[in-house]
């Protein structure tokens, strides 16, 4: 073994990813369990939006309280004390446990080898900005609106997913982000 490799790269063997069919069945059952238990599906940007409201309150309280979008979230108590915040914390813990157990936990700038670290930081930041803005317009993201909404046969979810895939295909042809 190369003595220069870090401990976490060779301590646990890298396990293969699940077959997409079984991963999809498992994801569908987790989503169904969430519907049965809570009455709604899974999400992500509900938590980042509340995190934004909380950070806004810490850094610019007057602006945040007066803001017509973030203000109401702050009025209803601590913006982070909501179901979706716990759920995203759970996602972090579940992903960490899975990546560690399967030997896939590795600290890295993914995309550094392909396009360079500086450029990768720019594409990640710009991509996040676009997705963050878009998820607020649609009141949901790929998880909350696309996945969870489509399971309820929501019209908005199918429109979102169709535009999402077509635009993703087109933009990938023009820009290499990773």
């Amino acid at each position, binding site marked *: 073994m190369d003595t220069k490799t870090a401990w976490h790269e060779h301590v646990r063997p890298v396990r293969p990813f699940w077959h997409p069919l079984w991963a999809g069945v498992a994801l569908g059952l987790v989503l169904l369990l969430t519907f049965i238990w*809570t009455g709604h599906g899974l999400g992500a940007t509900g938590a980042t939006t509340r995190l934004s409201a909380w950070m806004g309150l810490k850094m610019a309280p007057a602006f945040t309280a007066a803001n017509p979008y973030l203000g109401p979230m702050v009025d209803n108590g601590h913006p982070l004390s909501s179901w979706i915040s716990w759920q995203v914390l759970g996602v972090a813990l579940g992903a960490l446990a899975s990546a560690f157990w399967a030997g896939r936990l590795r600290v890295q700038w993914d995309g550094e080898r392909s396009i360079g670290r500086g450029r990768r930081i720019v594409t990640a930041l*710009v991509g996040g900005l676009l997705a*963050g803005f878009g998820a607020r317009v649609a009141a949901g993201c790929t998880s909350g609106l696309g996945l969870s909404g489509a399971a309820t046969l929501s019209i*908005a979810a199918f429109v979102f997913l169709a535009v999402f895939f077509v635009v993703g295909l087109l933009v990938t042809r023009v820009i290499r982000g*990773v």
Partner: protein
Amino acid sequence: MLPFNDAGMVSGLLCGALFGWVLENAGFGSPCKLTGQFRLSDWSVLKVMFTAIVVAAAGLLVLQSLGWMEADAVFVPSAMLAAAAVGGLLVGAGFAVGGYCPGTSVVGLFSGRLDAGVFLLGLLLGTFAFAGLYGPAIESLMNAAEVMAGDTLPDAYGIPAWALVLGMAAALVGVFVWGGRFERASRGPVTANEAVEGAAP
């Protein structure tokens, strides 16, 4: 009668942990695997998402048919089609450029990817930008093209739910067959070893 409508910490942490566990095992912490869908060389995103949608939709339909759950008992997003289309456009572009969607960026960060942390920072900035610009113009865009007849395809257009689920299941077979062909004609799906090494030049 289902659902239980629990809004507590335990259900949030547990459903979230299972969600993150499955996403990481599907390979969805890796930006080169995720964007492989748009390069048409790795169809895992469509295969996994579409399978999950069919399984969850069929499960809800069964529960409703058995009378264990009311038809309108679970949350359904409003049919604001302009908002959904503009949001899909921006999230799709953000996914192609940034390599993640909001949920998978959390998985990426917690499998050690620092670029996913930058994507999450971008999400917060995008939210602030939206909040700063929020006003009558954005509100009227978000309320445009609303379907008044109902929020779901069965409610608005009278298509039976079972027919939709069957149709989606048939389309799912097509996704696996056609996706498999595209994968064999290109470099193919990103393996776990390749994902751990990071996106290749």
